[in-house]
């Protein structure tokens, strides 16, 4: 491998300019988190009995929100293409975050939440309803405005607006069309479910004696039947594939020949629909074979995503190899060069892929966990020569940081709660002693060795430095900004589900250990220490919810 690309040291500091795309990313991330929280918390159907303006919010709020999101997404996607390379951003000096506006945003979003609790949780009507709704909308708009100004100054918003004014009709069109199509798509669910029912029946017919009730859409074998609900019809995957395919072709249209590239979309939609048919058929066959818990547990949960990822990634990989569709030069031995992002991300991708498979074959207890360890180990072994130039040494300070992260993890769990307490999985207690020991050994090995390596390479080695520069491998970790630390840690925290806060704090600690001396070994050692202590905590105290 070329030793240069993965060298963590670069003496020349990167040129610092204002990057609106980065700031816009912060803003989108902030608004997305807030929108998700509000969407989970509030339900506009609770306004069904309201009157006045509140009733309008109840009847049309979701459609309006959907339209605004579609318009915003369109503006960002088209605007990004328009502005990329067309504007000299070097003319703008770096601008710090406007903390005063951020504070104003925090206050107004808090007021918005407080007003929401009154509007959505109480039966308001008449004049009170109108006043409350106006105050609620005003607080929401103020929060959006302050949030926007916190990350991007007004003068740059003006430049962005002037540069992309001609795109406004497209955004407005997307904002209007999307809610209308939402209403229109209702009629698709019933026929799609009926077609799925017939196709599943056809797939099963050669394999089992099919027992079905077309009126109730129940189908299966004598031993195991399922009801195909409308949300199992396959349309959801079709819709997601449409979003993914259209978005991809829009963002990277210069890499494809049109109109033939558009054929990829219906092809993938048809494929994902058929994948769902085979998913249901496989689920029935697994249940028929006696593994009902696996069918309705892990397989039911994971198979849809496995199919979606396989079709989406397969489409891109295949399209890139077809000159009729792709404008990209075909790969040959002569033009194939190093791919540093893959070295850093591949172990993490392998860990996730193996995790999805091991969950898919499990009911509740992930008995195939060792597969994850083997998968990461194999990828690390494959790329081992690429990692030799990384700094794997570590100091005792990083071990101390790992202890601190462990204590913080437990403390956060105690203070704000976490998943409910669980004991050792019942299935594991029934295994022979050697098998139980072997599983626990592999579980600890994964927690202490393969997980820290895979996650630190991906989140600190790649993502944190990628935030600083596209040529991330030339970024010295000691030059990484607090923003890079925070963003990579937030993403790391998000991967920990309910424990996102503790995960984010731990991520910050590992990132600081990495930044201190620029050694990936320090981050891995800190992470491994935390996981080792958590493993000991689980095995000693029997609190298996920490795994």
């Amino acid at each position: 491998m070329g030793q240069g690309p993965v060298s963590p040291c670069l003496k020349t500091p990167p040129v610092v300019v204002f990057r609106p795309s980065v700031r816009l990313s912060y803003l989108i991330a902030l608004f997305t988190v807030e929108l998700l929280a509000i969407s989970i918390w509030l339900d506009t159907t609770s306004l069904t009995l309201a009157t006045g303006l509140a009733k309008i919010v109840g009847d049309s709020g979701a459609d309006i929100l959907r339209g605004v999101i579609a318009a915003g997404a369109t503006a960002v996607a088209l605007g990004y293409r328009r502005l990329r390379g067309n504007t000299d951003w070097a003319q703008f000096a770096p601008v710090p975050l406007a903390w005063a506006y951020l504070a104003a945003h925090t206050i107004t979003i808090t007021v918005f939440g407080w007003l929401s609790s009154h509007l959505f949780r109480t039966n308001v009507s008449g004049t009170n309803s109108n006043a409350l709704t106006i105050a609620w909308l005003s607080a929401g708009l103020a929060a959006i405005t302050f949030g926007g100004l916190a990350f991007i100054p007004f003068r740059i918003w003006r430049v962005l607006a002037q540069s992309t004014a001609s795109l406004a009709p497209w955004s407005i069109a997307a904002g209007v069309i999307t809610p209308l199509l939402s209403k229109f798509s209702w009629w698709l669910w019933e026929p799609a479910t009926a077609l799925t029912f017939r196709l599943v029946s056809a797939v099963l017919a050669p394999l089992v004696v099919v027992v079905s009730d077309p009126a109730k859409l129940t189908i299966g074998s004598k031993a195991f039947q399922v009801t195909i609900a409308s949300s199992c019809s396959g349309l959801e995957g079709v819709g997601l594939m449409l979003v993914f395919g259209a978005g991809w072709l829009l963002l990277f249209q210069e890499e494809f020949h049109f109109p033939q590239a558009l054929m990829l979309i219906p092809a993938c939609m048809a494929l994902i629909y058929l994948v769902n048919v085979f998913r249901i058929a496989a689920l029935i066959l697994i249940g028929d074979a006696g593994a009902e818990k696996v069918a309705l547990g892990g397989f039911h949960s994971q198979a849809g995503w496995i199919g979606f990822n396989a079709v989406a990634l397969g489409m891109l990989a295949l399209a890139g190899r077809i000159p009729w569709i792709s404008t990209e030069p075909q790969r040959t031995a002569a033009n194939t060069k190093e791919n540093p992002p893959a070295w850093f991300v591949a172990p993490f991708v392998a860990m996730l892929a193996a995790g999805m498979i091991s969950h898919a074959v499990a009911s509740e207890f992930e008995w195939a966990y060792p597969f994850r360890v083997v998968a990461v180990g194999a990828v690390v072994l494959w790329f081992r020569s690429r990692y030799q130039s990384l700094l794997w040494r570590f100091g005792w300070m990083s071990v101390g940081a790992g202890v601190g992260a462990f204590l913080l993890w437990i403390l956060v769990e105690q203070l704000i709660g976490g998943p409910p307490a669980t004991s050792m999985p019942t299935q594991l207690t029934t295994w022979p002693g050697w098998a139980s020991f072997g599983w626990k050994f592999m579980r600890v090995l994964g927690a202490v060795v393969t997980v820290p390596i895979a996650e630190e390479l991906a989140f600190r080695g790649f993502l944190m430095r990628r935030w600083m520069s596209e040529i991330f491998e030339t970024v010295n970790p000691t030059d990484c900004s607090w923003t890079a630390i925070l963003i990579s840690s937030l993403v790391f925290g998000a991967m920990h589900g309910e424990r996102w806060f503790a995960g984010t704090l731990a991520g910050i600690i590992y990132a600081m250990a990495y930044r201190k001396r620029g050694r990936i070994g320090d981050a891995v050692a800190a992470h491994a220490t935390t996981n080792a202590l958590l493993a000991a905590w689980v095995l000693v105290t029997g609190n298996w919810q920490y795994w």
Partner: protein
Amino acid sequence: MKKLTALVLFGIGVSVSAYGATVPEIDPASGASALALLGGALVMIRSRRKQ
């Protein structure tokens, strides 16, 4: 025309997928891992092409 086509397709996709309120087909509980896997794999594919 390409923009219009893509926008219409995007809109239809959002509209259709937005109504999967209960999603046994695409389980939201597994969403973070699945999307991280998709994102990581896309990083690898994109970076290879940009060489």
